[in-house]
């Protein structure tokens, strides 16, 4: 049996186990055990992948297998991973496990909560291990729809509005995506002259340029909606603000990466000519999104909104980097996906912890928390520093690669937009440091805050799960970057720059 199937079987078994576990405590135990196993499986996958590469296997995708599904339409379930998907799978496993720990206190309909959460994660895992458009699309929608219930039932604030808006906008995105994917299918041809959904076969056969011009924008925008592409990002702030903590973590940390990964793996890889032709338009969109969302963030006073806009800005940077179509920037894009996934998940986890204690998310209402909640505050500072790109933490490596890569383009257009995008870092520094200054430093605002309980063991576990890789990535990005760069070779060859 293919090892990758394990990544679907473990969550499926966990969901099955959850259906039979009642009460308030049992579901979270089942979820924690299941997701720990999943985390172990993901780590094992990384090791196995590295071993295989070290042994000299240079295939585009490793651990591939292909299961026949709808034989007359040549729809198959094709599995396989490369360095990019392996690292994103590891990210997903980390964030999901941390999310389960952070949700330790969910008691209202606990079983249903964890079932939906793990279904969402299953969709993400399935998306990353698939290398055919049909299964990718299937898992993509599977990952989106539990969000409706998760935000709608366990959320706060205008949760019904936020849940509906998020679901409809993402589904509208996936609707356009579907048109693009079907177009790719009907313009594809494999060795046996059949239409195919398999990514590698489509790439090998090539898509005619006229079709690319039609389907590249559809595919890019379709995935881009999930990656918070301007102007289709407005689901994100409302959705994140209303979602329960673990859902914000998974959504910003992992689900939004599906958008970036899809643009990278489907839109650019399969339609490189159209990508090169049309990238200017999307560079304008994503470049302005980077600054625009960052400036919007500094005006927010609600922690979740700040982080939501910050996520839009950072995810915009991922798409921006992908559109630069060269090795350094693309490496940076993948690093940024991972770095941002860890960072933003950590932020949302901390915001959740703060909210549970202070019952507010308004920055100005808090103050001096460093004195009463040292662990949470210190971790918040580290996450903040990673977010604004401090060397030694993950954000720096990613953003540096992106901007160096973007600046490699000699023409004025690319350089101007790169400079504009770089300026967002300054804006990021403003909103991060302002929050740290107002909320964590200074005198204790409310006398009641003095008695707040520190972080519990499950909160610490969740936070540590996220912060260790952030630091690790910052100090030793090389093995990760190597893994990614090796996997970019086919894409760069398609683009004609490798």
């Amino acid at each position, binding site marked *: 049996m293919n090892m990758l199937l394990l990544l679907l079987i473990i969550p499926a078994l966990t969901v099955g186990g959850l259906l039979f576990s009642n009460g308030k405590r049992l579901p979270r135990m089942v979820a924690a055990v299941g997701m720990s196993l999943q985390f172990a499986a993901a780590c094992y996958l990384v090791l196995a992948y590295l071993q295989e590469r070290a042994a000299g296997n240079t295939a585009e995708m490793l651990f591939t297998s292909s299961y*026949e*599904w*709808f*034989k*007359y*339409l040549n*729809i198959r379930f094709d599995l396989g991973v490369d360095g990019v998907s392996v690292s994103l799978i590891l990210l997903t496993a980390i964030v999901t496990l941390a999310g389960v720990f952070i949700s330790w206190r969910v008691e209202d309909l606990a079983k249903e909560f964890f079932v939906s959460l793990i279904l969402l994660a299953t969709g993400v895992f399935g998306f990353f291990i698939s290398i055919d458009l*049909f299964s990718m699309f*299937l*898992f993509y*929608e*599977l990952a989106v*729809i539990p969000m*409706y*219930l998760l935000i*709608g*039932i366990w959320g706060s604030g205008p*949760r*019904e509005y936020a*849940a*509906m808006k998020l*679901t*409809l906008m993402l*589904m*509208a995105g996936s*609707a*356009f995506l*579907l*048109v693009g994917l*079907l*177009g790719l*299918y*009907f313009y594809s041809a494999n060795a046996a002259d059949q239409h195919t959904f398999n990514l590698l076969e489509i790439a090998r056969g090539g898509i005619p340029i006229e079709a690319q011009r*039609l389907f590249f924008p559809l595919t890019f925008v379709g995935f881009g909606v999930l990656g918070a592409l301007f102007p289709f990002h407005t689901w994100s702030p409302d959705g994140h603000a209303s979602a329960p903590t673990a859902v914000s973590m998974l959504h910003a940390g992992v689900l939004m990466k599906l958008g970036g990964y899809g643009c990278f793996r489907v839109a650019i890889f399969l339609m490189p000519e159209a990508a090169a032709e049309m990238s200017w338009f999307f560079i304008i969109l994503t470049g302005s999104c980077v600054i625009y969302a960052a400036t919007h963030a500094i005006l927010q006073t609600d922690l979740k909104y700040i982080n939501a806009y910050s996520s839009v800005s950072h995810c915009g940077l991922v798409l921006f980097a992908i559109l630069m179509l060269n090795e350094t920037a693309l490496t940076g894009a993948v690093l940024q996906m991972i770095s941002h996934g860890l960072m933003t998940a950590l932020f949302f986890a901390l915001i959740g912890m703060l909210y549970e204690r202070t019952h507010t998310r308004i920055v100005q209402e808090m103050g001096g928390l460093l004195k009463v909640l040292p662990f949470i505050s210190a971790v918040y500072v580290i996450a903040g520093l990673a977010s604004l790109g401090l060397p030694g933490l993950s954000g720096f490596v990613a953003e540096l690669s992106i901007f160096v890569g973007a600046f490699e383009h000699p023409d004025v257009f690319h350089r101007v937009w790169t400079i504009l995008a770089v300026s967002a870092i300054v804006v990021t520094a403003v909103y991060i440091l302002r929050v740290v200054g107002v909320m964590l430093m200074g005198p204790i605002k409310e006398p009641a805050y003095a008695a707040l309980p520190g972080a519990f063991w499950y909160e610490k576990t969740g936070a540590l799960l996220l912060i260790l890789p952030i630091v690790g990535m910052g100090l030793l990005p090389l093995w990760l970057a190597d893994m990614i760069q090796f996997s970019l070779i086919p894409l760069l060859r398609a683009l004609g720059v490798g």
Partner: protein
Amino acid sequence: MKWDDLLLMRHELQLLAVILIVTCAEIYLSGRDKSRIIPLSLALFGIHMAAGWLWPAEGELFGGMYRTNGLIHLMKNILDVGVLIVLLQTGGWARKQLVPENRASEFFLLIWSSLLGMYYMVSAGDLLMVFLGLELSTLPVAALAAYEVLKMRSAEAGIKFILTAGLASAVTLMGISLLYGSTGTFVLADLGKQMQGNSLEALGFLFFFAGIAFKISLVPFHFWTPDVYEGAPISVAAYLSVISKGAAVFILMILLMGFAPLLTDLWVNVLYLLAILTMTIGNLFALRQRNLKRLLAYSAVAQAGFIMLGFMSSQQDGKASIVYFMLVYLFSNLAAFGVVQTIELHTGKEDMSDYEGLYRTNPRLSLVMLLALFSLAGIPPLAGFFGKFFLFMTVASAGYYLLLTIAVINTVISLYYYLLIVRAMFLRKSDNPLPLVTSDGWMRAGLVICVAGIVVLGVASGVYDAIYALCAHL
């Protein structure tokens, strides 16, 4: 012709036998034993349905007026499965309401008569047979729609149905006579060959088509749908939305794709236009509905528009996508109607606001409804996703990307109103939610079959592959 040849008509003969046995039972059973008619009918029909799957045959009878083959056999079996589920879901209601009034068996007999008409319709080899089948399948439904005679709305539904159905039949007949006048034949196999592509034929075809479009509830022939669904007993609405529509879709498919191409350009264009109109208008109307029966009625209109997408290609994949979608739609829609019926039967409530907080009191019913709605909306990994995906593939294979885009936008609109029901059941909390409803065993069996279909049909690709293989020759 030998006696053996009559075995080609096995479906019809079996069903006739069931009808006769139940009629005799109705006559000879005394008042107190009448309640046994319900299990008897269900058992007999269950046997009929199971037997229907055996030994598919191919051939013609009565000089080509009656024909059957593997695909037609499958269509009849699909209708049987649907009717069995409808009857299972009717069981509890029939026992509670109809048995005391001594009107249970007639309900079954009327449904079966209508089903018999559909059998003849899909097996028809010439236009007159099509018309006879159409009428036989329509008339009993008018009586069924008005079955709750003491309720104003039920009577209104019956009247509305019979009047509009009469108009539709008249127009159809007009179309048939024009086609006959132009080509000089009723026989479907000859019709295509005799056609010269003049306007009279197009006129005849359009008139004939309107009658069938009425049964499928395509816009602008759909006006009766919400009123009749709302007024009629829910089982009848379910029957109309799935079985009656399914049979009409099947006959349309046989007529358009089964014989020498009849006016291919014309019908592709007509259906292109009507698919857009039907999906969009159905969805826009469904958005505003707060009564679940009306909402499901408009949703059924919109789904009919989606079915028309399968007609964009007369290749094997187009046919397969239509038949497969009908099967998937049958399970999804009947599950939704079953839940609405259970709740209505026990509490009398059918508004969306009554469903608020349903999950906390009735988790199982809510989950069934959730699966049904998600399947109707086309959410993976449920069967509805695969059904819609294959329809969309058909459209894309014909190269109609504009139509495809309009269709996918419509799926998003439809998702909105399906989510409204989910919102009421799961997201809202109510101060006085509906009490725990315990459905009867038959209803439960019906719902279990539906859920099994929704969950299994898509992922298990064997079903689609089998249908695809059968669609090779129509």
